[in-house]
């Protein structure tokens, strides 16, 4: 086992015991990247046969800067200073966060030449904690997707468990870089499931914190009422340690909550005795429209995914948790239609700023006036997915349709929120500490199998998006492998600011299942 395969927790311990150095850890990381990653994503690059065997997590590798950071950590340690709780731990950053002096592309041609003049709060806090940023990783363009295939920077990221399948998205580069042992931690964002779904597909841990728990300052906006930065890690402990660092109030973000951040590690291994964990039939089926007829179909989830959730429930029950069956979550099925409206309205609004004037791409084609310059720049700079979101957002928020679509969606959002309030109410009928569900309706699908069908792709988030509408936290963790040896993700959802409890349950499950056979199987890229 190489240094880069160790958890952040183990790396910090070895570093503090002076059994290794931050520079040695970084060298191991860079060596792994060299072995498995292949060429980074770039504009106007076509995927060749060789590319199909590699991971392609990165858009920008910041190895030289990382070396300086690692050397500074080693110097601090040698001088007897405390270099921070994540000292020397390499991490990647989804390229939707601004980092001063680095390209901050959002995986879009329109921002390909943009270098941010400032650093996002979450990244800054990681660096202040001693973590070493090794680069910016790939994503769906502006985070619009669930497979990372819509990136303008190709080859897009591939799944380390099988490079012919997608890593999920939009934080595909984050999840793949962690799963492939390139880094133990990555900073992602979750708007409809964009941390949890790729974490499930890549067999790692992903956390969508409560909305407002982590500052959005420096995050290039998609849907401002839904976007949540959060950790991707290989273990629950590491995810908790990372959230500990990035969470908390921020003067730069008026939506960042001022509620004190609890010690997430304090009760991490306190077990689940007496906790009430719910199972809902509304999370064991998906409902989606037939693209031709528009008729809605209901489909049960694959048996292997159901079995993983059931197994987790049994494991937690054996540890003293009370499993509450048949918890009704009747508005789960509306999560995607509501998302189609709300996220598009917010995305369209956020994308109007890209106009070829102050920064980003301005067309190289001839134009006669400002309006034509806007049109040519935006047409050249945006890929199909941003264009689709702009057009839908404008349609459903138009004055004559607003009541029919936008206002209605905001009301249904209330209904989704109330589902959760009812089951987490400590004085209510269910009094749940957490809801246990599958993270995704399927395991990782083949590259090119779904991309292009914007409706089917969106339904990949059906089990994750309700948490975004409600603002509540969610934790996805590995729950087994399917017959193709692709990871299955299980999800824990909790009340506002209950991350500590979710970590506690997740860690309990992790401890009890640590010797199960599926945990010994490595991603194909590492065999």
């Amino acid at each position, binding site marked *: 086992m190489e240094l880069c395969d160790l958890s952040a927790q183990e790396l910090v311990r070895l570093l503090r015991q002076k059994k290794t150095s931050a520079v040695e850890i970084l060298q191991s990381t860079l060596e792994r990247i060299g072995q498995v990653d292949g060429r980074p994503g770039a504009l106007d690059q076509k995927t060749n046969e060789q590319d199909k065997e590699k991971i392609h997590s990165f858009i920008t590798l910041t190895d030289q800067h990382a070396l300086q950071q690692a050397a500074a950590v080693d110097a601090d340690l040698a001088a007897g200073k405390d270099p921070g709780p994540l000292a020397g731990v390499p991490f990647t950053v989804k390229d939707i966060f601004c980092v001063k002096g680095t390209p901050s592309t959002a995986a879009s041609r329109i921002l390909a030449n943009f*270098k941010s*003049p400032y650093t996002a709060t979450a990244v800054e806090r990681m660096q202040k904690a001693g973590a070493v940023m090794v680069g910016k990783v790939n994503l769906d363009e502006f985070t619009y997707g669930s497979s990372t295939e819509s990136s303008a920077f190709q080859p897009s990221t591939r799944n380390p468990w099988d490079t012919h399948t997608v890593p999920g998205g939009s934080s595909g580069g984050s999840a793949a870089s962690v799963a492939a042992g390139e880094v133990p931690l990555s900073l992602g964002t979750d708007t409809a499931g964009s941390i949890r779904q790729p974490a499930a597909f890549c067999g790692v841990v992903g956390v969508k914190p*409560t*909305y*407002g728990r982590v500052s959005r300052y420096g995050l290039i906006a998609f849907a401002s*009422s839904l976007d949540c930065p959060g950790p991707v890690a290989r273990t629950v402990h590491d995810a908790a340690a990372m959230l500990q660092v990035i969470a908390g*109030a921020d003067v730069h973000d*008026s*939506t960042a*909550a001022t509620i004190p951040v609890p010690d997430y590690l304090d009760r991490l291994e306190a077990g689940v005795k007496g906790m009430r964990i719910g199972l809902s039939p509304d999370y064991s089926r998906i*409902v989606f*429209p037939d*693209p031709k*007829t*528009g008729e*809605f179909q209901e489909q049960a989830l694959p048996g292997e995914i159901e079995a993983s959730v059931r197994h987790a429930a049994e494991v937690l029950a054996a540890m003293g948790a009370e499993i509450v069956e048949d918890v009704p979550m009747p508005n789960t*099925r509306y999560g995607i*239609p*509501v998302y*189609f*409206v709300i996220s598009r309205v917010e995305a369209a609004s956020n994308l109007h700023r890209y*106009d070829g*004037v*102050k*920064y*980003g791409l*301005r067309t190289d084609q001839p134009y*006669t*006036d*400002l*309006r034509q310059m*806007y*049109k040519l720049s*935006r047409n050249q700079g*945006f890929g*199909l997915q941003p*264009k*689709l979101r*702009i*057009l839908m957002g*404008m*349609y459903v928020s138009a004055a004559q349709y607003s009541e*029919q*679509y936008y206002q*209605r*969606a*905001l*009301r*249904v*959002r*209330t*209904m989704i*929120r109330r589902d959760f309030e009812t089951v987490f109410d400590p004085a209510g009928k269910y009094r749940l500490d957490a809801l246990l569900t599958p993270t995704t309706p399927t395991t990782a699908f083949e590259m090119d199998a779904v991309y292009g069908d*914007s*409706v089917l792709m*969106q339904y990949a988030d059906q089990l994750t998006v309700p948490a*975004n*509408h409600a603002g*509540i936290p969610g934790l996805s963790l590995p729950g087994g492998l399917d017959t193709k040896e692709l990871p299955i993700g299980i999800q824990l959802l909790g009340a*506002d600011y209950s991350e500590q409890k979710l970590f506690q349950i997740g860690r309990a499950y992790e401890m009890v299942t640590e010797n199960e056979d599926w945990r010994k199987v490595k991603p194909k890229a590492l065999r």
Partner: protein
Amino acid sequence: MSEQITPEIFDHLVDLASLELRADQAEYLRKQLNNQLKAIRELEAIPGDANLPISLHGVSYAVAESPAPREDEWHPYPDAKEILSQAPQLEDDYIVVPDIPHTTLK
């Protein structure tokens, strides 16, 4: 099922969005928009309750949990040139744009 977004509505949206599309892009995008609207129609089946409040955010913003509003404060940026250098066209620290079209209102 008839298409809600006709070619005429679509062209109007494209113009409002300041986009200019190739024919193949327009065909794909219009088809996807109509497919998405089919999914959104599911919301119409939900019994309407005009008294149900809307949620702009999932988590409520209680005063005790939110930063207190403050006056806007002006701070000089230490390196204005760094920001200006991102502009596609500059002249003497002014951002240059092409002619602004004017329409005379009736």
